[in-house]
């Protein structure tokens, strides 16, 4: 005979069950809160320890509640922070398929796809976020990244600005959004606007590492290399990562402090080489180092291929094309560069690389077009001087 809801034994059983499950449920909530807090802290401080703490907390939470939806989303966020895009996508997809009304789950799929260079899926997911809620900050954030990738820098700026206006979350999220907008401004020749925004961020959160990193890049673009180097030295003391070291070395080099730069580059190389095969690596920087600073074209190409096997986003395609160029495989370099540019991104350094490849292939008209494109995106980018030089070389009589 089936029990009924009126059966006292069952009632007692349910009450016991409630008592027994209450403690783990509270623990799970507590662990998820810890993971969320640590993830936010990791973004704000670029802290590896905070990320590790988030990972540990979510690992414990999922041991207690393996099917916890929020827990699973946090797990994906940790994977994204560790740039484990393929694993993140594998875990995000079932979450999205199981609950398609959850806006954030679409965002996780979009982020993972973006990291892998699958822009079709990234766009489809981000568009759904906007369809579900046209004013949701997460949708605007992904949309802004994609608009930039597709070459719509003004549209991207509009989305970032909207996201910033609409954000009702905490100060850190607004700081993050403002920093992203500042970054776009810098990369599109609006360094002053970028600086204004970053000043606001740093006034509110003086130790906010993403803004400090971006401010150093603004200083580089403003040719204030010594200032950039000082900022990056300070940043490296807090965030001792190879990519920070690489930027620091670059600033030192531009400041004319070659000996210090050399040491910094060597430190960078050691650190980056140690994680060549790890998901969270510095292979793009390493490729650029082996092509532009310490020429080892074969090694640059080897590293680029390792990364290409992992992801084919536009930055990896660009690095691969640049390594091929350095290795003398111009036809393949152009093919890969064309693939990167076909996405639509209007980036000064990409255009410069495309121009250099075209120039070496003796395709003068394409080279001129790409160098001009590079300068039109930003006349003050790090590659602007080289682009001007190349144009001058191709047409010495031009202004």
């Amino acid at each position, binding site marked *: *005979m*089936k*029990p*009924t*809801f*009126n059966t006292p034994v069952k009632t007692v059983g349910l009450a016991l069950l409630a008592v027994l499950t209450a403690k783990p449920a509270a623990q799970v909530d507590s662990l998820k809160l810890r993971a969320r807090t640590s993830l936010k802290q990791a973004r704000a401080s670029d802290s590896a320890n905070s990320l590790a703490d988030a990972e540990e907390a979510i690992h414990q939470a999922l041991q207690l509640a393996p099917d916890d939806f929020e827990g699973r989303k946090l797990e994906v966020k940790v994977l994204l922070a560790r740039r484990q895009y393929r694993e993140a996508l594998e875990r995000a997809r079932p979450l999205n398929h*199981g*609950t*398609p*009304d*959850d806006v954030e789950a679409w965002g996780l799929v979009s982020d993972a796809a973006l990291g892998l260079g699958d822009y079709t899926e990234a*766009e489809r997911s*981000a*568009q759904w976020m*906007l*369809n*579900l*809620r*046209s004013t949701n900050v997460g949708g605007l954030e992904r*949309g802004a990244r*994609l*608009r930039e990738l*597709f070459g*719509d820098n003004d*549209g991207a700026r509009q989305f970032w600005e909207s996201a910033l206006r609409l954000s009702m979350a905490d100060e850190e999220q607004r700081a993050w959004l403002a920093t992203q907008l500042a970054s776009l401004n810098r990369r599109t020749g609006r360094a002053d606007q970028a600086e204004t925004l970053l000043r606001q961020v740093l006034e509110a959160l003086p130790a906010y590492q993403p803004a400090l990193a971006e401010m150093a890049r603004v200083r580089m673009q403003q040719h204030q290399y010594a200032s950039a180097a000082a900022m990056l030295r300070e940043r490296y003391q807090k965030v001792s990562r190879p990519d920070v070291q690489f930027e620091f070395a670059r600033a030192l080099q531009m400041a004319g402090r070659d000996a210090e730069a050399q040491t910094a580059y060597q430190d960078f190389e050691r650190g980056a080489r140690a994680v060549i095969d790890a998901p969270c690596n510095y292979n793009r920087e390493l490729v650029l180092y082996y092509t532009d600073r310490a020429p080892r074209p074969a090694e640059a190409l080897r590293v680029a291929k390792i990364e290409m096997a992992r992801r084919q986003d536009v930055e990896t395609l660009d690095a691969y094309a640049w390594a091929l160029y350095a290795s003398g495989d111009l036809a393949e370099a152009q093919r890969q560069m064309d693939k990167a540019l076909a996405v639509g991104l209007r980036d000064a350094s990409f255009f410069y690389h495309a121009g250099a490849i075209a120039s070496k292939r003796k395709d003068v008209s394409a080279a001129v077009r790409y160098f001009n494109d590079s300068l039109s995106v930003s006349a003050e980018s790090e590659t602007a001087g080289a682009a001007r030089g190349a144009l001058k070389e191709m047409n010495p009589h031009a202004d």
Partner: protein
Amino acid sequence: MKMTGRHIAVILAAFMVAQPGAVFGASHREAPITALDRAADIADFFAFVSYDDPTKVTFILDVDPLLDASNGPNYFPFDPGIQYAINIDNNQTAMAEVSFQFQFSSPASALPNIYTGFLGALSGIPAPADSPAPVPPGTPIIPPAITALTGAGSGGFNLSQTYTITMLVNGVPTVLTKQGGGNFYAVPANVGPRTMPNYPALAAQGIYTTSNGIRVFAGTADDPFYIDLGAAFDTFNPRSGAFPSGIPGVLTAAQDADNTQNYAPDNVSGYNVNVIAIEVPIAMLTSTGQVEPPTSSAATIGAWGTTSRPAVTIRSAPAPVRYAGSFQQVQRMGNPLINELIIGTGFKDYWSMSQPVNDSQFANFDLDPKLARVLNAAYEALFGAGVFPIPTPPRTDLLPLVTYAPPIAATGTPAGPVADLLRLNTGVPPTPAANRSRLGLLGGDAAGYPNGRRISDDVTDISLRVVQGILADSTKYNLLLGDGVNVNDVPLQETFPYVGWAQSGYTARHVDPGEPGCTGDAGGICPIN
């Protein structure tokens, strides 16, 4: 609304299950997005052969539900940012070959300094003799009572709204114009007898005929849906005092046959809804361009309503000046209660925004509807094992409701893809009022739901029975399920636009438990429990 009809025959009962979502009162705020975007919320969708002209079909799209009749001063304008549409598939593709799109203007204020949208009394009231300066006595203060939507008698019609209708046939748009020219005006809410002394006459002015012979009406009207919504969503908790059968939610034969009174509170009573109604010659709807007999495979159409808003897109429109940007569907409705009662909460918005042609992705909800399991578990826990049997999944008994199939479509009609469309055999003539059954096809009334849906059809009771399994076995799974609400609180009309006119803000009331309004109970008092 009133209803005739009775009994429970059987045949097909309802579509609520087959498509996405169907069980209760149509769909009031059933998905998370529309819960936040009520102007775009489709409450109900109806399609039936016009009672007074079997060569025409009437479609009614109800949006923005549960409008309290007295909720001034702005009352209930349609949202100018929404594209409202009625879509018709006439070749079993589950895609629209014919569509009617409605777009409304921003409410225009004729009296911007007046505090309310509608003001009027008698033949107008001037400032009295002791009117303080600077307004001299005799200055017009209150306009005449509102008796017209435009021109004389409309002076106090402060917030008026017009609309446009675009008919698309195979994607080719034609803007419909009014016979004799002029604007289509949306009919305002019924503010009250002082302001609108003859509201039915005023509302009737909002019935227009287009130059191609289509009749339209848009405006606030009585919400024709009726349901004990409170019981439905309290984990299906019918009020015990309303069911002499001894099992709440199971009607006696006498109750089941009663199309004239309610045994439980109608939670939609006293509320208005915004209505878009359109009556179209069948010849404009069928693929053959003519009225087809019911045995013709071209006689059955599939219809659904949608609301859409301009989309925010990652990709820019290629020529934004020449072409409007794309729209994003906010909600849709074919069969009643699909999204509300069948689709899971994690999928409701996704379902709303998807196209019917892609509904096979939601088939699992139909094949093992959770509502059936909830009812099975709840009833058997409370009233004993075997009280509420349900068929074993997969519930293929429900799938014919989402395809073109007999008994709605003629034998031989291509089934088409699984899709939540309200299918209507346009060759089946309307049932006279005296013979109409609130249970539609289940009641032996061939012109009722799920062969289309009339506003009098009791889709709640029909859907409950279909979910239980009446289509799988009409003997085994045939409890006389019902919520005890069998009839609308106000009479429906027998002619276009069929809905009852808007309830008056001055006199409307909601019949709640413990109040008079349930004529079947002692003293006419609705039961509290």
